[in-house]
């Protein structure tokens, strides 16, 4: 099958109005906000060297913060602000998705605009400033008839740079709940759907180029005093915004938002939930690729309605327990703790997706390693790899404490690559996920956690506070509870890890539905 006739292209195209629309909305708003703040500040600071140095310093520091981190930081910040505003003024706002993305991206756009505006204004010949004064201009007239027009080419270069940066960086707003072209990239990366990754990159690049060229048209118009060019550019940008707003107006706000974290299983399960809801006649949409620290708060704040989490994750990460208790105790305690926050623990799906140390079966047999305890004496000569969060999670601390584990080297990598890495011997051990289909595919073995250093990780359905009494939702999801065993989930995950048309989360979710006897 040729790459262009791959049905995933048309699937990707189907998401385009939604993803592109959201992407344009968040980028344009952020850029407008960034300009509205940066331009006056730059103009204000042109005769104030201290303010100028401070502004450029702050903007430069912001620029050194990686885009993803900047976006992620705004979420807890706004969450705290929203809580404050609720307790002080009785009004709350959503700290999820749009708002933090706009604020972070606006901040990100400031450096090129500030720097180029300041440089452009400083570059205006002092003799011309004097001439402007000499012919009788007020400072304001001098600014608008002489300084800004002369600084314009440099300023526009800054604005264009900012626009390209914002549009590029907006792809990173997916993990904090803002739908964007990044949804293609995050989903594609997780499910090894390279068509999606490519599509997302191309769409973002095309959008950035288009906006850049339209701004260039406006710049030419301003420089050549051509009203036609200015009008064409402005109308094109305005119609881009309007066109992307239209699909959003038609969308029902009553639809259920199904959350998904950033890995394959989550994409499949959220597709499954969405299909169940749609089968029950309920409108549903996915909010995919959410960071695991963001998703729980988003549910608690009613920004999403339902998602799947794992008992051990909540136990250790969300509620900061460091002790490991038996499965039933953990579930019971979680239910109580969640109920206190009005979150409904609807039930378990029937499988566990725990962290586990995994190595190639043959190598394990050669070395006589069957349990984590057996591994401990060999570990100092071995290297271990895990996903980006594992080494800072309590499970890792627990493993090291309980078994005295200490590896020669530890590496972080993209979860989908680490199974291949351990199979090829590039690393010796990985911290894998027990429900991952790749364990069987690469003939790997899960080492027994004989001393229970890792808590149980039952997959469970959580409902947002506002959906607590929603019986339609409950009835639609009830048939899933207890139906998905570990073997089924592994097979589903393995299917989803494939790289063809039958491996899309939707297709796998359909297969899963049939497999567990649902229509």
């Amino acid at each position: 099958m040729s790459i262009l006739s791959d049905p995933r292209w048309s699937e990707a195209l189907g998401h385009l109005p939604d993803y592109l629309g959201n992407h344009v909305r968040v980028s344009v708003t952020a850029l407008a906000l960034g300009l509205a703040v940066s331009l006056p500040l730059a103009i204000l600071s042109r005769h104030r060297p201290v303010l100028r140095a401070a502004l450029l310093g702050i903007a430069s520091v912001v620029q050194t913060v990686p885009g993803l981190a900047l976006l992620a930081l705004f979420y807890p910040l706004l969450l705290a602000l929203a809580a404050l505003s609720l307790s002080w003024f009785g009004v709350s706002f959503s700290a999820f998705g749009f708002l933090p993305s706009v604020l972070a991206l606006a901040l990100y756009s400031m450096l090129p605009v500030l720097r180029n505006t300041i440089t452009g204004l400083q570059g205006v010949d002092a003799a011309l400033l004097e001439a402007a004064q000499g012919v009788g201009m007020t400072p304001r007239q001098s600014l608008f008839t002489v300084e800004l027009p002369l600084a314009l080419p440099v300023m526009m270069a800054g604005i264009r740079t900012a626009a390209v940066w914002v549009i590029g960086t907006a792809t990173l707003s997916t993990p904090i709940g803002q739908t964007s072209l990044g949804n293609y990239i995050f989903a594609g990366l997780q499910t090894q759907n390279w068509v999606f990754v490519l599509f997302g990159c191309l769409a973002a690049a095309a959008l950035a180029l288009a906006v850049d060229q339209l701004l260039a048209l406006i710049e030419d118009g301003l420089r050549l005093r051509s009203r036609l060019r200015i009008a064409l550019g402005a109308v094109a940008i305005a119609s881009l915004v309007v066109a992307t707003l239209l699909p959003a107006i038609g969308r029902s706000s009553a639809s259920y938002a199904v959350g998904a974290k950033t890995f394959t299983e989550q994409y499949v399960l959220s597709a499954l939930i969405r299909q169940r809801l749609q089968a029950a006649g309920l409108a549903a949409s996915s909010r995919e690729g959410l960071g695991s620290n963001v998703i729980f708060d988003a549910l608690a704040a009613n920004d999403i309605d339902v998602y799947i989490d794992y008992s051990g994750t909540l136990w250790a990460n969300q509620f900061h327990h460091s002790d490991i208790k038996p499965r039933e105790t953990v579930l019971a305690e979680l239910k109580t703790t969640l109920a206190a926050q009005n979150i409904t623990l609807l039930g378990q799906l029937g499988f566990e997706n725990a962290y586990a140390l995994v190595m190639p079966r043959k190598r394990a047999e050669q070395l006589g390693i069957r349990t984590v305890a057996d591994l401990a004496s060999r570990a100092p000569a071995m290297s271990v790899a895990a996903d980006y969060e594992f080494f800072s999670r309590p499970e890792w601390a627990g493993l090291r404490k309980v078994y005295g584990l200490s590896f020669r080297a530890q590496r972080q990598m993209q979860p989908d690559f680490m199974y291949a890495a351990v199979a090829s011997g590039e690393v010796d051990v990985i911290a894998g996920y027990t429900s991952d289909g790749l364990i069987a595919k690469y003939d790997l073995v899960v080492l027994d956690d004989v001393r229970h250093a890792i808590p149980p990780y039952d997959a469970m359905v959580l409902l947002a506070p506002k959906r607590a009494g929603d019986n339609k939702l409950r009835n639609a999801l009830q048939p899933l509870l207890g139906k998905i065993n570990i073997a089924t989930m592994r097979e589903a995950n393995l299917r989803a890890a494939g790289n063809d048309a039958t491996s899309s989360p939707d297709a796998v979710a359909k297969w899963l539905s049939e497999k567990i006897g649902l229509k």
Partner: protein
Amino acid sequence: MPAPLISYANVAKTFDDGRVVAVDDVSLDVAEGEFLAIVGGSGSGKTTLLRLANRLIEADRGTITVEGEDIGSVDPIGLRRRIGYVFQNGGLFPHIAVAGNIGITPKLLGTPADEIAARVDELLDLVRLDRERHRDRLPHELSGGQRQRVGVARALAARPRIVLMDEPFGALDPLTRDALGDDFRALHDKLGLTTVMITHDMTEAILLADRIAVMRGGKLLAEGTPAGLSNRGDAYVDELLNTPRRQAERLGALLPRHGAA
């Protein structure tokens, strides 16, 4: 004698917190209709003295009156709009066409557009630039001499009684410079202007001005007509006057009177 149109009385100006004395206790009157040249080397304070008159620079001490008013108590913006100013290299706004540059001060004064357009054409004639060919050009499309003609037209646009000129012909080639100097002197007489021109070139001052003021180290060293200055007995002033005189004599001897021999 009529009241002077511009009058400096004990004016002083320092820069860098008093470390640089630019103008040191200068008193000087410019009569209505007079063409005054201020001559001096770099750092003599001549440019500062000129800019004090339209408050591009504010004086530290002393009083300056223009048309009988103490300029310290008038709005500097309005003051500048009624005084023409010709800048060293034209000072034309590079992004604005010739007509826009010339009409800038009337526009700031709120003159209707059609009146400005008529005035621009009138001024182009006055500074001897072709209306059709030059009106819509941008400054970089003009020669140095044409740019300075536009600069003069701009200074005259709002019909000022006073024109201040900051080394207006310094950067031009000798022929253009000569022609432009003569043209401006003719305009000065025709329009009844009061002109203060700065130059470092004594020859230019002698040839154009009614009266010459010599500045050195921030002080007004001497002032008078070219003839009056020459028997003042000041060594520096004598040296300034002797150079053009010697040059004229040598040129007279070197050049045959009627073309090539």
